[in-house]
């Protein structure tokens, strides 16, 4: 301990080039808060949208121009800007860009369509109606999304447990708020927000408890020093290591929605405003898996034989429960939530291979799944009946006849989720399953078998929806797909193009992921 405290104060060295993307994002978020404070109400939506998009684009440029040539462990071991961190940060920024575009959809109205005009008004109250008439808008959602993105960027680069914990909170807190701001079915949205918040706080406590135990074990919160302590410490201290590792992993597995820590997923996904659901599903999953990769491959790799089987069981349970429960769902958003649970299981299979190809496979999967998910939720937001979102499956019957293009695109995305060849779903499943068979041992093979069976079950679910959309007589009702603006069109187009390109020519991105799969210590 005394060695950690220098006698004279030394300022920590900062590699500003390496952390430039994060600084740009948080700077944009702070300006967004100022805009909220000073700009007149009528200009806020436009100003916030331009500012947010420009911020994320600038962060992407900063990432490629400054951070990529500057791989470094900086800020006194707090951040490791290495291959996986940069790959996932770029992925997250792209998800953020598409997510913000989807959030900005107005469908011809005055303010963003998915968000309530006034979060503080009671649902269904005269005040809410008055706020709608007055053209109010919750334009705070844009800075909140940027703060969340800031937390995610730190989360995938966090090189010690304290930074990781703070990043976890920074990324979660704005999401809890955003979840409760839906324009329609607001009680459901507020309930979802509260559930997400309470369970999220609960999982943070698990993470903290585990981090405290690991600190007790190694005398440090740095992943590097924890890894060193695992090799040098006597086995008398192992009573701290294993509970610590398990509790930290529980805290992180909660965020990806692995069974049995998934119970918040369907409720939060259903209640949240649909573009937020898409952003959560894509970006939170990418960020959380980035952190799990770093913990598993940098911090706890040496002790992996102690906890590998446990996480393997969680992966198996996640795939089985996610696949089986998605069969029984009648709501599109809940169905996609359970599908995201199953996908978390597939990604865990690749993660447990402990192989460079496994890291590359996981990162490839996150990109492919995230882009398809963002597009899928953007489409869910378009399907309406009587002004509210038509999320019940029965409302989707015969949609293929009324809106062949929209239903066709959604069908293609579902095929990708099912893992049909020539879509990104197939190549990404291959990218995580192949390393598991190659270097995952017996457990890897077993998990892949379960994964393939679970994929078959989920494929049944997706085909059922496609059959429902195309081969069922449409009931005489007013379910329509709204005409999207340029923003949503971009999101859907990017999602569809990525799904096809990554399915047909996955080599480029896979190579990029492989080149980026080395952690810096």
């Amino acid at each position, binding site marked *: 301990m005394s060695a*950690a405290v220098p006698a004279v104060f*030394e300022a920590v060295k900062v590699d500003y080039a390496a952390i430039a993307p994060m600084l740009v994002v948080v700077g944009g978020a702070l300006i967004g808060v100022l805009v909220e404070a000073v700009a007149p109400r009528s200009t806020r939506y436009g100003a916030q949208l331009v500012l947010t998009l420009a911020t994320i684009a600038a962060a992407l440029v900063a990432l490629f121009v400054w951070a990529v040539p500057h791989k470094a462990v900086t800020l006194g071991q707090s951040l490791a800007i290495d291959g996986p961190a940069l790959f996932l940060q770029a992925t997250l920024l792209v998800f953020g860009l598409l997510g913000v575009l989807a959030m900005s959809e107005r469908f011809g109205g005055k303010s963003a369509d998915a968000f309530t005009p006034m979060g503080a008004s009671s649902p269904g109250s005269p005040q809410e109606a008055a706020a709608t008439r007055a053209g109010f808008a919750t334009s705070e959602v844009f800075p909140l999304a940027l703060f969340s993105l800031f937390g995610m960027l730190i989360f995938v680069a966090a090189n010690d447990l304290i930074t990781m914990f703070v990043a976890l909170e920074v990324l979660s807190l704005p999401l809890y708020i955003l979840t409760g701001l839906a324009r329609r079915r607001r009680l459901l949205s507020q309930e979802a927000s509260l559930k997400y918040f309470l369970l999220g706080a609960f999982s943070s406590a698990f993470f903290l408890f585990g981090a405290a135990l690991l600190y007790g074990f190694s005398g440090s919160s740095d992943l590097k020093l924890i890894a060193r302590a695992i090799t040098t410490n006597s086995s008398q201290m192992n*009573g701290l290591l294993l509970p610590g590792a398990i509790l930290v992993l529980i805290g992180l597995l909660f965020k990806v929605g692995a069974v049995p820590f998934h119970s918040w997923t369907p409720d939060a996904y259903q209640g949240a405003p649909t573009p937020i659901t898409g952003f959560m599903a894509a970006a939170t999953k990418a960020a959380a898996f980035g952190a799990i990769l770093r913990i598993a491959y940098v911090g706890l790799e040496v002790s992996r034989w102690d906890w590998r089987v446990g996480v393997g069981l969680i992966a198996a349970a996640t795939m089985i429960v996610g696949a089986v429960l998605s069969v029984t769902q009648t709501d599109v958003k809940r169905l996609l939530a359970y599908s995201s649970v199953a996908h978390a299981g597939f990604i865990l299979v690749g993660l447990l291979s402990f192989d460079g190809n496994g890291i590359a496979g996981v990162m490839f999967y996150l990109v492919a799944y995230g882009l398809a998910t963002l597009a899928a939720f953007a489409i869910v937001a378009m399907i309406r009946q009587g002004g509210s979102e038509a999320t019940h499956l029965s409302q989707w019957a015969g949609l293929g006849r009324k809106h062949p293009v929209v239903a066709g695109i959604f069908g293609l995305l579902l095929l990708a989720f099912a893992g049909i060849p020539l879509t990104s779903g197939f190549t990404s499943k291959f990218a995580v399953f192949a390393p598991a068979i190659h270097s995952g041992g017996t457990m890897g093979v077993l998990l892949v078998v379960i994964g393939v069976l679970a994929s078959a079950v989920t494929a049944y679910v997706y085909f059922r929806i496609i059959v429902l959309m195309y081969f069922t007589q449409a009931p005489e009702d007013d379910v329509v797909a709204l005409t999207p603006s340029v923003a949503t069109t971009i999101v859907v187009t990017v999602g569809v193009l990525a799904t096809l390109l990554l399915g047909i020519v996955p080599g480029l991105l896979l190579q990029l992921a492989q080149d980026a799969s080395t952690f810096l210590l």
Partner: protein
Amino acid sequence: MSNAPGTGEAVLFWILGPLAVLGSLGLIFAKKAVHAALGMALTMIILGIFYIAQDAHFLGVIQVFVYTGAVMMLFLFVLMLVGVDSSDGLLETLKGQRLATAVLVLGLGGLLTAALGSVTYPEPAGVKSINEETGNVSAMAELIFGRYVWVFEVTSALLITAALGAMVLAHRERLGKGRNQRDWSKRRVLRGEYVAGLPAPGVYARHNAVDTPALLPDGTPTPLSVSRVLTARDQVTTPERYVEAEDRIAGQIEEDSSR
């Protein structure tokens, strides 16, 4: 130099430790929010004492300031908003949930106790040498603004998010113009009702609280004199006992004067 705890510290620990555990159990099991808050305050103060006993003076003081000061104040503000009398609903919505929770919690607790109990801990490092060489506060400052400066700065994003979230979720902007006193008065006169304003709550010889209605000339209490919020919360008392006491005193005075 041994950093093992001395006798005094051990005695302190074994007296205050169980109290801290009791306080935290009270936080979980107390049915009234006020009792839970007091249980938490007890636990937090005792933790602060422990830190000070272990030479971490700065941490101990901050613990008392932040938790028993700031956090408990927030807790009490929330209690003021929801009402002191509010208590948890104890209805079990999912059948068998409480039993399953108890089993799982005891299982987890047992596993953790077994694992942590099996560890042979090395000699505690302690902070005595740091306190003597660098100084307690300086050493903390060097870590916070040196090694952990990034985390320290990032925390500000958390605070801004919290402030922004509170505004989004709780701040109601006024839509349109509200009525001022003049408007209200005009409206009363136009409608011809309560032209002189609503009656004030009851004022009795020994009592003048706002939750006690005033009496009409015929002796019946008027609900108009009590805030409708109190009526909705069912917190209105009846004026009977004050009236009875007054009558009794009046009676006694009469008796005395007639004697």
